[in-house]
């Protein structure tokens, strides 16, 4: 399957970029063949909505899993809806993080417990007029 990893530079030896929505590049790796390609993150210079834009981008590239450091509530919701599994890593080289993923060392991301009213419990719900 195709895996996306947030990166600082456009190659497999790049340092890991901890930000999902505003990372500089995504490295897409095929977990079977280990072939990889790098794409610039279109959401890098976004106004609001970097998380949703980045989620849409990796979904459009066919990613089925993504590794970053943390995911904001909008990105989380979008990635969940797209069925893309989220994993976390802290730092290192993309290549090594890929290795950790393959050997099952990486943890799945879970949203922080009840951090604020409605940012994490589904969409920001306003009342209707």
């Amino acid at each position: 399957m195709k895996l996306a990893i947030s990166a600082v530079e456009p190659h497999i030896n790049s340092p890991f970029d901890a930000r999902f929505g505003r990372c500089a590049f995504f490295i897409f790796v095929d977990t079977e063949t280990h072939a990889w390609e790098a794409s610039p993150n279109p959401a890098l210079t976004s106004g609001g909505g970097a998380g949703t834009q980045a989620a849409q981008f990796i979904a459009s590239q066919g990613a089925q899993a993504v590794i970053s450091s943390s995911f904001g509530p909008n990105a989380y919701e979008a990635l969940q809806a797209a069925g893309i599994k989220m994993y976390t890593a802290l730092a290192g080289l993309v290549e090594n993080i890929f290795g950790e993923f393959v050997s099952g060392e990486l943890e799945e991301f879970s949203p922080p417990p009840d951090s604020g009213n409605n940012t994490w419990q589904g969409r920001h719900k306003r009342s209707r007029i």
Partner: protein
Amino acid sequence: MNNGTKQLVVLSGKGGTGKTCVTAALAHLASKDNPPVSLVLADADVDAANLELLIKPRILESQDFRGGQVAVIDEDNCQGCGVCAAVCRFEALHANNGTYRVDPIACDGCAACVTQCPEDAISMHEQIVGRWFRSESRYGPLFHAALRPAQDNSGKLVTLVKQHARLLAMDEGRQLALVDGPPGIGCPVISAASGADLALIVAEPSRAGVHDMRRVLSTTAHFGVPSLVCINKADINPEGTIEIETYCMQHGIPLAGRIPFDTGVIEAMVQGEPVTVYRPESPASRALHAVWVRVSDELQETPA
């Protein structure tokens, strides 16, 4: 923040309560602590960035900030049909001599007009709406910005300034990111508070100050940022001070201290220094020492 860097944001709700003076004093006191706390500073009040007036930064790097985009009409192709103005929700399109013109200040950048123009005469252009700076200050690296007046996207610029501060803090293993926040409770404040480990609310005990303190505390609570309150110009309205203390007690919000009204603060500002540097024995300076102790204790208790 990762790797142990903690982030403190200084907010107020009401403008003019003393956020910047307090931030500068805390930066000074943190850097003089025993052992000194390594800092990175960020001025998130991008509309009216004043922190630099107290910490004498030397600019090392400056970059254009590209904010949103605005629509531009090619007058040669415009047939004056007015469909653009009909779909614009921001009153940004006006008839002018048989064609239409975009008001760049009113334009929100939605591009609805672009999609509806039958002549394809409209295109979106990115705008340079400000600059951001990386500087060296006496207390550590400072990231700050200046948004051009009348511009949109302060939230985006705040996020950018904080991101740079965050990355540098990670790279250099700095212990604390100190963020001077903007007034209000909207988008720039939400961006400034996002990701903070702790918010220090600088409240003034006027009726207006208490009213707005509640609103900003609701905001930080909503976004899950633990807060504490210090009362500035505390002797200006003793009733107000009691109201703030009661409110904080009822809501489990720690009090970081009371700072008396002190002309030394303005004298120090005129000299371009934090009050703790210029008038270290003044009542405000003494109170700020106590505030720093309380804040730094609270920071140590927040999970990394």
